[in-house]
């Protein structure tokens, strides 16, 4: 299982677990006294549900803009289908003259790629949903609202390998492993734990916002 698959599973699982009771308790159209946060969460869920059911990127949250654009730029370099390449190039050209990065302007075939990937993911999740329901949640990655938005992003993100015809990111020679998150109260503690990173960070002076001693006395940008 890739690192991303692991993340998306947690997001979907926790988003569903956190959002469902609230939606069962109150109608989706809202009740008097519902907080702004709950209302925003419902709005977000509607968007996510809309995306999942119709796969119409036009309805996707704005967070998708950057990702769709980013993927399209990369796809333009690797896409072998001439028609798709022309479509992508046209879309990107349009952005130059009308720089509104909206998924609704993306070529339609992106919807189909997302659909294929979602179907695969959904099938796997259905198979394992019973097992997941029995396991307590051990990890929190953020608020339900954020997780739902994140889930949407990650779903489209997972389309990238299909889109690109092969993932060319990190080396695959090192095995993916679970990531442990550690919060630090002081920069000194963090620097002690990661001396190599601290040394180079000081060298390029990028910890200035934390009152760190750097070694960047100026120079060109």
């Amino acid at each position, binding site marked *: 299982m890739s690192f991303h698959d692991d993340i998306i599973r947690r997001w979907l699982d926790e988003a569903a677990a956190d959002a469902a009771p609230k939606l069962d308790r109150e109608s989706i159209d809202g009740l008097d006294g519902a907080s702004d946060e709950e209302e925003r969460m419902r709005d977000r869920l509607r968007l996510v549900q809309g995306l999942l059911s119709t796969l119409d990127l036009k309805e996707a949250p704005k967070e998708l*803009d950057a990702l769709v654009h980013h993927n399209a730029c990369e796809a333009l370099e690797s896409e072998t289908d001439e028609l798709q390449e022309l479509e992508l190039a046209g879309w990107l050209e349009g952005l130059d003259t009308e720089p509104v990065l909206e998924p609704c302007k993306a070529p339609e075939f992106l919807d189909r790629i997302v659909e294929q990937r979602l179907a695969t993911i959904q099938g796997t999740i259905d198979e394992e949903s019973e097992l997941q329901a029995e396991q307590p949640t051990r990890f929190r990655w953020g608020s339900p609202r954020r997780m739902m938005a994140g889930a949407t992003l990650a779903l489209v993100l997972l389309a990238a390998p299909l889109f690109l015809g092969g993932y060319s990111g990190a080396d695959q020679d090192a095995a993916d492993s679970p990531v442990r998150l550690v919060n630090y109260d002081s*920069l000194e503690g963090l620097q002690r734990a990661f001396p190599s990173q601290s040394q180079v*960070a000081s060298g390029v002076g990028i910890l200035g916002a934390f009152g760190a001693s750097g070694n960047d006395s100026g120079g060109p940008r």
Partner: protein
Amino acid sequence: MSPLSTASLGQWVGSAILTLGLIACGAGTSSSDTIEFGPDNGVVASGTSALAANLSQAPWQVEYHGVRRLEFLTERPVVEYREKVSADGRGQFGIQVIDVASSGLDTASFLAEQAQNEGFNYRYRGFRVLDPFLFEINYTVQLLNQEQVVAGVDCTRILVRKRLGSAHTTPNHFIVDMEPNTGLVLGWQELTPSGVLLSKMEFESFGFGPADEPIPMGAGSLEETELDPQDLAGSNAPFAVLRPRLLPAEFRLSRAYEVRDASNKLWIRQVFTDGEGALIFMHKKQASANAGDSKASTLGILEQGQWTVVMGDVNGYSLLAVGKMGANEIEDFVSSCF
């Protein structure tokens, strides 16, 4: 309608317009440091492209010198100090703190820290246009109809706001006083969406050209080579360059560098921006990373004020990320490399 009622109506409208104008221009802030922004008061600037380009280039292409006062009100203790700054217009710059007004600060260590972080302070602290194209896309610039004189220089006051839409929360605003011919920023104030002042900078004295008493302009301590951000595969890195795919809203890769550390190990430094904000990401391949390496991956996180730094060892890579954003956003950003 009687003349009396007409006059009253006119007075009321005039008063309302004046009030809106004052609010839009940030007047009436002396007691509470709070500014309320009316919708679309003032004139949206035309020719934003040239403006964005000037704001971006001026710190590097204009030769100037001066003394400026900085205040960071969210830090504890509040940080307030004055510094001399100069730039040669050819990419070199120097900053030197000359006095610290804050009480409760360890002045000696503060001065030492500032001296060692000149580069960060010049490049990323406060309002700064890092990428004019993205700035134009992601920010609105509104001319505030208020002449402003800063350090004896007539400035144009603008209100810079991030376009709403994709962000979960409403971002902060900047009120910026710029010298209109060069685009050099002589003052800025960062405010929360509700108008609470967070930090500010203002020149107390300013002049074009070299300073009478030049500030030493240093060089970066590590060897850096700029890369084409569109062709990271063409770098000399003996490993696959990581490409974060889940960027903060509206952020794009703007600049990239190869950096050799003190052990001559090659790192890749990538600077992502939405035009104004910066997210800096550095990574290298760990020498010991072998196939099947099952060493647990760890990310250490420190959130301080508006900034977050993440350092970690993940899947055979050493990495760090620094940005003026929340821990969640940077976690997602880093995770999306793998």
